[in-house]
């Protein structure tokens, strides 16, 4: 059954290039796997096994994929839609594989697979800019992930080359050479961190996210970054099992904080709103890594959930705006809230959510992190300064695009109710954060 879940997304290829059928299958597949996956919890088959944390990310990915696939049917012209759905199916299959993998090696194979599939998403139809972004992404991503593979090999060698199974490695690392494990973790952090978009390995991220077609950007930001982050979560749990959490924590805090601060600084230099959203992804992945470094995996999980939903909403909104206005720059779009409230209101609120305003869930996540970080005042203060900078960077685009001067843009037959649904989910999550669920997931992550 677990194998079925990995191959399910490939069902989409049955539709060949017929757009209506492609859309139907692309929505059906995530719905099926949403229904099926909960029943597979705890099952194992070959190198696959589904536990709570894997299930959480699997469901999140399927939810977002379903919504984006539905939205995309109005976005792409008929003759090029298949490119998106085909690449998307490959990507979904590799994401499923990564969340089901219960084996260090398989996890790596599927993470790299998701890089290749998402390169196709970025490339889509081509053009000089998309080609440049894809090339950069493929080269940087592959070199980064090769560093990660060296880390995997070192861990494998350190446990005596006996097994790559998570559970068994976890019980073996306690007796492994700690110096070797530190080297391995550093390599793994650089490797998977490249794909998470941590500073200074983030160079591919803004280009890929900005040049990909809108729905693909939503997938990259809302689901792809989580795949690599999930690997980091697992390896941090491994370090914890080996009694080396303090070492891992130091590295995670440093990379997280640097990513936050540099992303915030980059936000100020951006004129294009999709690049702005890309840097905001770098910021929030940095914050999630930071929360992990604080020793709060439940908060890191919560942060990635809140970020995925907010960013999907923001990128879908942005792709709507781009398609209607044909303007990439913040300054050329204005008055969205008044002229096209059905699109403008959720989009502007998504920027508010990403800026960490209450009552949105990222506010709750950031507040909790500050509470803990304040134990080391300089850490808490730098975190707050970074947050403030990032918020200020989003403030002008929010005001300009929502209320400023600009040509009014006409409406079209978009599935805008999807945006309102995402907005509703965000509000729900912000007002009633299910902390208990995430603490239970933390136990699963730390124990298994």
């Amino acid at each position, binding site marked *: 059954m677990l194998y079925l879940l990995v191959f399910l997304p490939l069902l989409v290829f049955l539709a060949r290039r017929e757009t209506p059928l492609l859309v139907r299958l692309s929505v059906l597949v995530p719905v099926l796997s949403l229904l099926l996956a909960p029943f597979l919890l705890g099952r194992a088959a070959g190198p696959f096994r589904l536990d709570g944390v894997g299930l959480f990310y699997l469901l999140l990915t399927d939810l977002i994929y379903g919504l984006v696939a539905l939205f995309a049917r109005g976005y792409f012209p008929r003759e090029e839609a298949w490119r998106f759905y085909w690449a998307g199916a490959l990507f979904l299959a590799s994401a499923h594989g990564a969340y089901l993998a219960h084996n260090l090696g398989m996890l790596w194979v599927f993470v790299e697979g998701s890089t290749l599939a998402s390169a196709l998403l970025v490339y889509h139809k081509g053009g000089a800019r998309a080609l*440049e972004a894809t090339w950069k992404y493929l*080269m940087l991503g592959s070199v980064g992930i090769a560093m990660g593979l060296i880390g995997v090999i070192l861990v494998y060698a350190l446990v005596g080359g006996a097994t790559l199974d998570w559970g068994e490695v976890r019980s073996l690392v306690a007796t492994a050479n700690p110096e070797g494990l530190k080297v391995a973790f550093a390599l793994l952090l650089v490797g998977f961190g490249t794909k998470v978009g941590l500073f200074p390995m983030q160079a591919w991220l803004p280009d890929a996210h900005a040049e990909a077609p809108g729905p693909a950007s939503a997938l990259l930001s809302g689901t792809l970054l989580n795949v690599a982050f999930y690997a980091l979560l697992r390896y941090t749990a491994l370090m914890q099992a080996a009694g080396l959490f303090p070492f891992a924590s130091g590295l995670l805090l440093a990379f997280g904080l640097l990513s936050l601060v540099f992303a915030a600084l980059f936000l100020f230099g951006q004129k294009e709103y999709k690049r702005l959203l890309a840097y905001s992804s770098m910021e929030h992945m940095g914050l999630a890594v930071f929360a992990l470094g604080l020793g709060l995996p439940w908060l890191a999980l919560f942060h990635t959930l809140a970020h995925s939903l907010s960013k999907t909403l923001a990128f879908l909104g942005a792709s709507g705006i781009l398609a209607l206005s044909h303007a990439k720059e913040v300054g050329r779009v204005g008055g969205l809230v008044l002229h096209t409230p059905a699109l403008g209101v959720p989009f502007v609120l998504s920027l508010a959510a990403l800026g960490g305003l209450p009552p949105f869930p990222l506010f709750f996540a950031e507040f909790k992190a500050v509470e803990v970080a304040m134990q080391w005042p300089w850490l808490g203060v730098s975190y707050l300064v970074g947050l403030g900078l990032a918020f200020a960077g989003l403030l002008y685009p929010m005001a300009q695009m929502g209320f400023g001067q600009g040509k009014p843009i006409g409406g079209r037959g978009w599935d805008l109710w999807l945006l309102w649904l995402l907005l509703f989910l965000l509000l729900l999550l912000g007002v009633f954060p299910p902390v208990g669920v995430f603490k239970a997931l933390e136990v699963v992550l730390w124990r298994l």
Partner: protein
Amino acid sequence: MALLTLVLAVLATGFLMVSRRSLDAIIRLYALQNILLALVSFELAGGEAHFILAGLALFAVKGVLIPWYLFWLVDRLEVSHEVEGYLSVSLSLLLAGLLTALAFRVGEAFVLPEAPLPQGVPVALALVLLGILSMVSRKKAISQVLGFLALENGVFLMALSESHGLPLFVELGVALDAFAAVFLAGILIFRIKGEMGHVDTARMRSLRG
């Protein structure tokens, strides 16, 4: 002794790949490197069947299929077969020497007590660094792919030296990923040529900031 000779021969191919200026020569060196690596893995196998199997599969994919694809790509592209770099031959050789020395210096720290082939570890690191050097110092998109492939071979040698190789299905998954990456890169190179009329990544700079 035979193993040590093989490993040094692998290092030599890595070194030559950095210094040569002709794409055909570099692709041939890459194929040779894979043959040598397959021999290393047979030598280490000690009669284990799955080891021989993995070695053969890797040899078929990386020693034959990928070089063949790259030759086909270079011919179809109709660009000069010369590698253009930012560095002169002597400077690249100097840097390659420094990186190799660095790899041998820090390689000691990477060698684990039970490593079956401790001499392979610094060579593996050297290949990784030389691969990165080729990637950053060369302009043609295809020579960057070759740099990545050399780097990937370094990772493979690392797995052989430290831990007797990864399990068969993981090794095959990794090889499959490498092949898919090269294949995808090939398609992109065609499109870059079609779109911009050159395959020079140094001239791809419209995305900034």
